[in-house]
């Protein structure tokens, strides 16, 4: 504690020496955030088709692959086709509750091996088993909590039944979402982040929020763009049309 007090005292002393370079304020905050978030959601309930078009454009620009399904029951066929085309046999998915539907039985019927990261199983044995399954899986299936049109970005909250690595370790990531997840701008995402943190422990069961904008990439060798350096080589989304 002595270290902290001393450290902060030094900074307090330095800060007190100067009024600063110019008068400045941090970014304005939405007040109250939950109401501002509600307003955005209401507006998007009208404007989602334009947001979806823009998202698709931006998502494809960062090498994302866009799919549509009329309703949730049609999603497994889309995922199975993606897996088949790549010769993938092992899949891992979020818990049905986090995903909004149970994708596993239909995929299993297609002859694929599906591991489900069930919520509420967090003992050491489950942890170890999950890790092995996640490391072996070739396709990872997740939801998306926010979908950002302006930048082609998927935002995923980690938590119970929604492991971080499902969208990271497999070569192919498939995210499934509906119209209610669409946002237009990064600024709106800022409002959502504020709203999530009003009561974070109730809004999120996990400790990580991940923004995903296209596949993993690098240009570290002679500036040659290469995909899939650590994370997925491909990112797909399946947009579910039915509300």
């Amino acid at each position, binding site marked *: 504690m002595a*270290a*902290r007090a001393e450290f902060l005292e*030094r*900074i*307090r002393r*330095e*800060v007190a*020496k100067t009024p*600063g370079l110019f008068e*400045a*304020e*941090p*970014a304005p*905050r939405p007040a109250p955030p939950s109401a501002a978030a509600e307003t955005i959601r209401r507006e998007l309930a009208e404007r989602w088709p334009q947001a979806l078009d823009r998202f698709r454009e931006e998502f494809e620009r*960062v090498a994302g692959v866009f799919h549509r399904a009329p309703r949730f029951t049609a999603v497994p066929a889309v995922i199975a086709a993606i897996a088949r085309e790549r010769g993938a046999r092992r899949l891992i998915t979020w818990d049905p509750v986090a995903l909004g539907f149970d994708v596993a039985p239909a995929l299993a019927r297609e002859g694929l091996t599906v591991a489900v990261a069930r919520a*509420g199983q*967090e003992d050491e044995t489950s*942890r170890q088993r*999950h890790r092995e399954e996640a*490391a072996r899986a070739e396709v990872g299936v997740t939801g998306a909590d926010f979908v950002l049109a302006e*930048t*082609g970005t998927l935002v995923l909250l*980690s938590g*119970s039944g929604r*492991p*971080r*690595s499902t969208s*990271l370790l497999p070569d192919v990531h498939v995210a499934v979402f509906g119209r209610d997840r669409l946002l237009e701008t*990064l600024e709106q*995402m*800022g*409002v959502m*982040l504020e709203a999530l*943190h009003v009561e*974070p422990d109730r809004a999120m*069961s*996990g*400790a*990580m*929020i*991940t*923004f995903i*904008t*296209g*596949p*993993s*990439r*690098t*240009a*570290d*060798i*002679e*500036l*040659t763009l*290469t995909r*899939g*350096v*650590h*994370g*997925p080589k491909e990112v797909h989304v399946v947009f579910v049309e039915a509300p």
Partner: protein
Amino acid sequence: MSDTALRTPFPERAGAALKDAFLQEALKIATTKFIDLRKESFAGFPQGEALRDRARAIKEATLQHLDVHLERLADNVERLGGTVHWATTAEEAREIVLRLCRDRGVRMAVKSKSMATEEIDLNEALEHAGVTPVETDLGEYIIQLAHEKPSHIIAPAIHKTKGQVAELFSRELRGEFPADPEVLTAVARKALREKFLQADMGITGANFAIAETGTVVLVTNEGNGRMVTSLPRIHVALMGIEKVIPSMSDLVVFLAILARSATGQKLSSYTTLVRGPRRVGELEGPEEFHLILLDNGRSRQIASTLREALYCLRCGACLNVCPVYRQIGGHAYGYTYPGPIGILLTAMLKGNESVRELAHASSLCGACKDVCPVRIDIPRMLIELREHLDRERIAPWSERLAFKAFRRLLLSPGAFRLTARAGRWLQLPFVREGRLRGLPLLFSSWTRTRDLPPVAARTFRELWKELR
């Protein structure tokens, strides 16, 4: 920093870089590409200019209450179950990491790219203590295998050819790999995937830390930042105290301009927001989260010359446009942070003495200020730094003497006239193709690498007199 590099004086280091044909080509291609990508990205983003102003204001506003924000950040991280450590010096920061490794039996640590860990020479310290540090950013991995240092803030290995990387991987990872970036990347993916799954500790820097929520934010393209914060049982984040920002509303302002400035992307592939250790019910994530707050000379500048350098986001945009960096690359600077901002950061961390030569490695053209996402006035601070060097008698005596004489001359119209007249004659042996070259004595170091316009046959004063 490796002392061998610093034993040779800066002009020699720069000279060697200028003779390195591959480096010259690589620098030209890389920096030009980054410049174009950035330009294109801002061209289609009309609100970018206003966002840059806002981002600058946020940095300034945060500094005005830095103590409050740091305290809030620390309280929130602790409330989330994380541990906060306070490191006044680089040595203290290293000691904190080493103690954690010792106490928890850590054998291997995977790292995502972090300039702060470079700044404190963490890898060497870990190796000495018997802990294997593994850099996982592809560029950092390459230079770690080659036992070199990063040459660009965001593209650490731009000075290496794919042939060199193929040779390096073939030797170090035992195989026969072709000079194909795609293949080499796949080789690194495989080698590093094992490390991610085996490592006990993940070490990261922080692009931002949000005081109000206790969140540490990492921006990466490769996904290694996500691996390092998801798979090992311990996560240690090391951040300079200037990285704190007040709220999530501030974060999105920075996100909108950071990747655009660095690589021309709208957002980097991954932005990771970490709120302490894993929570009950999470299958993955570290059991322990440690945040190390690093001062290392930063607080000294809050009320001093280099305050504005504390706004820096480490995007690398100022390196790409700098006519000096474009010629000599990152290694010639000799310290962790290269380029125009690097000179200021080096002065901040290592003291003014360390930049007695580097302070002049700038033409003061102002290109850096133009592209800086938070509009840091780098040229102004470089000039002030030069003044300090002179006042503190750190600059070489010959340089100080020359400028003193020059000042005298400029202040006295009579002396100026006389000197111009004398110069017209004295310069005759040194004028070649209409330029002054190869001056003798004190002036020789000036004309060794540049030429000068000669004193005109008739000076402006003389012309003015006639016209009147």
